[in-house]
């Protein structure tokens, strides 16, 4: 099993969710995060002092999937989340050693 961590632009969340539903990914966990990268933040002005906001709002999606689904899932996210502009985000794949469903005693892939 793998954990797919994708950092995307907030307004792409709905589209990504739909793209994942289509390929049968049924569960995910979403966190509001702030991203720092190549994309430049906007400039805010407060009482005459300009300052640049470095941290941009992003959304992090975490999805646990069986190893064989990683490629398809990554592809689906890339397609749905791409706007072509700088700051579209990243996808990281991490190994998961065990998984459990709290409600039942399911373990491993059947827990997803």
């Amino acid at each position: 099993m793998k954990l797919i961590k994708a950092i995307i632009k907030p307004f792409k969340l709905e589209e990504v969710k739909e793209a994942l539903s289509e390929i049968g990914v049924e569960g995910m966990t979403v966190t509001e995060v702030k991203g720092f990268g190549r994309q430049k933040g906007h400039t805010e002005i407060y009482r005459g002092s300009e300052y640049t906001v470095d941290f941009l709002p992003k959304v992090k999606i975490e999805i646990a999937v069986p190893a064989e689904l990683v490629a398809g899932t990554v592809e689906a996210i890339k397609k749905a989340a791409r706007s072509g502009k700088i700051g579209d985000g990243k996808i990281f794949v991490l190994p998961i050693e065990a998984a459990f469903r709290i409600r039942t005693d399911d373990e491993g892939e059947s827990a997803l």
Partner: protein
Amino acid sequence: MNKTHPQPNPRRKSIFPILISCFFVAAASRLQAQDSVVDAMAEQMPSPLDSGDTAWMIVATALVLFMTLPGLALFYGGLVRTKNVLSILVQCFAMAAVMTVLWVIYGYSVAFNTTGMEAGVINFHSFFGGLGTAFLSGIGVESFSGSIPESVFVTFQMTFAIITPALIVGAFAERMKFSAIMLFCVVWFTFSYLPICHMAWAGDGALFAEWGVIDFAGGTVVHINAGIAGLVACLMVGKRRGFGAEPLAPHNVPLTLIGASMLWVGWFGFNAGSELAADGTAGMALLVTQVATAAAALAWMGIEWIKSGTPTAVGAATGAVAGLVAITPASGSVGPMGALAIGLASSVCCYLAATKLKRRLGYDDSLDVFGVHGIGGIVGAVLAGCFFMGEGGAESFSLGMQTWVQVKSVLVTILWSGLVSLVTLTLIQKTMGLRVSEEDEELGLDLATHGEAGYTH
């Protein structure tokens, strides 16, 4: 200048309670007997009460309190960071509570008692009122001040005594000790607010009144007075951690806009209420207040639009306040076109002060108390000497003696408030200290000083 003030009343002296005696005892034991003859006489005179004026002044009082609670508290509260929002709110609440109590104990008397004053004579009582009306001694249901009950006059003026120290707290927001703030404000109220208020509004024999200063609703008394205290205090307390390096952005701009709107609406009570009657002058004060504020808000947004393409919400609010401040001293004497001019001028000057000047000199007047109230008050006080409205509605502009008189009153206020602030803050710094620890500043005053978080999700 237009303030009606109560005449010194001989019977008041007879029951003057000694200031240091516990007010609790005073409450229970005021003597009743000797007043009966005077009262009987009073009853036969036709009552001076005008129900319309009274109705307006009760409401004006409510409006001015509304400016502090919740108006100013929110205006300031939204501008600080999340971790300090409650500290501002508590300070405003505490100011309202403490100043109310001090006002009834001695404040009203020191500000408005006219014992010892004489037209044309400058003496001690041109600066400080006597203590004859301490504990509001002798003020009953049948006491009048002009056409309104004296109780209403007392409360109306009290709301000015509340908002003035509350204004100051914006200058040293997010870093000053609560105990030091309260102590400073009590001393400053006693030795700067009360005398300046007396000089301006206690009538014949008071310093500014003798000079013929125009300060209809408190340009010197309230705004310059508070603005200077704020400047001195923020210099002495020092900058916030991170000032200049991080944005220290407002945590909740909608709160600030709510507060600014309440200030705007409440200010009608402040300015039109200062006429102490519901008449044509009050009506004109209403109109010019609205016009100056609108012009100033527009000007601030315009400057931002030109400079960066983004007229901001905080800018609109700050501009409006700059206009409100500047029209305050002039609201009883200018017409709508003068108000337009004053609003525009104030906005430009305050904008420069709150941005360029502050950056140039590097002081951390956190919420621009000096930049807006100090500068706006000075602009308004001086221009009040230049614009006049005639009876038929014709307006004129002149730079003459009146302007010079106004400048003198501004200078006195700056020196007086500056000196009182400097001495008081130095003493506090030497004894209990002015500033919270670095750790407390980092954690935020809400948790550190008040043991509470503003928001819990």
